[in-house]
């Protein structure tokens, strides 16, 4: 309970789901051997953290930022460029993080102080503008960033697939650098997620909720809401940058598509809404569900489509053609918002309170 910050899942189904996701991720290398499942698991870890940090803004503070991928990108590029330019060592990872995190914090502070004292919509517009400018900059400065191609780089030897922790296997799985990398990602994401959970359940976090509920009254009680919102913005940026650094380490690559693109921003929004805003736990479920769908829905549809085709059904094969997967994802999204307006977590907790 200490570690959960006193914020229990408050629903049996939710507890079971969270435990299932946690166990699946904790033992992913052994439960789902193979490189694709491990990729999916690592992506779920990283996005659960990224989405949780976004929830600090959207769900807890009530402000809409479009710059979250920028901070994710700063973390990614920080580590990527340090490793690319100065060689694959742990020192360079640390250096990349030590450059990226302060940069993210300073930018978030500047954006916050500049725009959060005005209306919330102004903040959203400023984040959109700054993030767009940053994305353009990253692709224009190709001598530094590799432009649209991005940068592929080597990671420290301990994290390379060829590295073996020891000879032999555990449960039939060789403990190579990939597994080590995965656990680095998993543990870092878990620790940072628990830190976020602690922050939202602290006195500071409760003031954020109060500000979301009624900024006017929060101000009248003596809270400086600009300072609170700006601090939340800085914390969210720091965590997003950390998630970005982990993403770069995992992928051995950073480019606009994997760290800065607007489609990642949309993914984050979808995940936080599906999971349930203002709950933190929603980020975990939203990320798990969405990334699983992203990776396996297409394959599932492909098999449905070909099965229907061989059964001679009309229309169905076309409807379930793998190329239509985004359409189905969209339909799933609309249905989930329609039936779970408070997200999965909100819905489960509602049921628990009624029961």
């Amino acid at each position, binding site marked *: 309970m200490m570690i959960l910050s006193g914020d229990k899942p408050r629903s049996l189904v939710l507890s079971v789901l969270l435990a299932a996701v946690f166990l699946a991720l904790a033992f992913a290398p052994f439960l789902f051997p193979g490189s694709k499942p491990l990729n999916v698991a690592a992506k779920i870890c990283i996005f659960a953290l990224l989405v949780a940090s976004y929830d600090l803004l959207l769900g807890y503070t009530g402000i809409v930022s479009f710059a979250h991928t920028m901070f994710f990108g700063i973390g990614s590029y920080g580590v990527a460029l340090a490793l690319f330019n100065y060689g694959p060592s742990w020192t360079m990872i640390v250096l990349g993080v030590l450059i990226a995190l302060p940069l993210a914090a300073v930018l978030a502070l500047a954006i916050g102080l500049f725009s959060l004292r005005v209306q919330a919509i102004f903040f959203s517009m400023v984040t959109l503008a700054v993030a767009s400018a940053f994305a353009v900059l990253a692709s224009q400065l190709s001598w530094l960033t590799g432009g649209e191609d991005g940068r592929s780089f080597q990671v420290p030897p301990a994290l390379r697939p060829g590295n073996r922790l020891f000879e032999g296997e555990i449960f039939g799985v060789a403990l190579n650098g990939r597994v080590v990398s995965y656990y680095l990602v998993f543990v870092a994401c878990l620790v940072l997620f628990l830190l976020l959970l602690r922050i939202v359940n602290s006195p500071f976090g409760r003031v954020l909720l109060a500000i979301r509920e009624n900024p006017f009254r*929060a101000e009248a*009680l*003596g809270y400086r809401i600009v300072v609170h919102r700006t601090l939340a913005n800085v914390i969210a940026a720091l965590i997003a940058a950390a998630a970005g650094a982990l993403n770069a380490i995992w992928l051995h690559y950073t480019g606009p598509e994997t760290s800065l693109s607007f489609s990642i921003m949309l993914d984050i929004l979808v995940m936080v809404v599906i999971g349930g805003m203002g709950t933190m736990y929603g980020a975990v479920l939203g990320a798990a569900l969405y990334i699983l769908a992203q990776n396996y829905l297409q394959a599932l549809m492909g098999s449905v489509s070909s099965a229907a085709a061989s059964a001679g059904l009309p229309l169905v094969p076309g409807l379930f053609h793998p190329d239509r997967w985004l359409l189905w994802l969209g339909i799933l999204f609309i249905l989930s918002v329609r039936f779970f307006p408070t997200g999965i977590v909100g819905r489960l907790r509602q049921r628990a309170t009624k029961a």
Partner: protein
Amino acid sequence: MAGSSGHSPSSMTTHLETRDLTIRFGGHVAVDSVTCAFRPGELTAIVGPNGAGKTTYFNLISGQLRASAGKVLFNGEDLTRLPASLRARRGLGRAFQLTNLFPNLTVGENIRLAVQATRGVHYEMLRVWSGRSDLITRADAVLGEVALAPRRNVAAAALSHGDQRKLEVGMMLALEPAVFMFDEPTAGMSVDEVPVLLDLIASLKRDRSKIILLVEHKMDVVRSLADRIIVLHNGRLVADGAPAEVIASPIVQEAYLGAAPGKASAA
């Protein structure tokens, strides 16, 4: 505490004052050059018809609105340019006319947020909120004072109107301010709920160090509680004095109380 009327303001006693306080909305002057000083231990009732500028006057004092001209002085400090948050920290407490709560948080959490604000626990991030038993203990005490203890775990939005009014006042009490500003605290309350609030205001009066401002339409309430009445009309301060005197004055009788002069002064 020293606080007898006529006492000159010193740094030791609470002193609130507005000088030529004015706000214009476009061409409309909602508060017009109001100069008035308030002393500790004194409950001042502010009366006047709807739209007279009473709430706007409060908003100028507690910082929800910025003055177009004039000054707000508190304990010798000019607060005119200060945001509402910093005025609250200086000790200006406000309960709003239109109930103004954190609707999806519980009654207990609403009060606890006020306690937390006044104790300066603004940025503590690594301790668990629900583990701060000092905040909870104090919040429970306030809940008792406004007779909301049994409703502690209900969402503020789910309260009856009367209970919401009590919570509104409870949040101000929790701030432990030096100045209490009540804006029609009993409006819309059922008759049996009113005494709790009136007793509470009366008990605040007994602490001679507090300044209490009360906007109230019910004349019997004003008569029983006020040490002084000021009358606002079209944003101007048109009368100021002891209750009997102000209530009996022709201008109040005719324009604001709508009662026959004999009746009011006899009461």
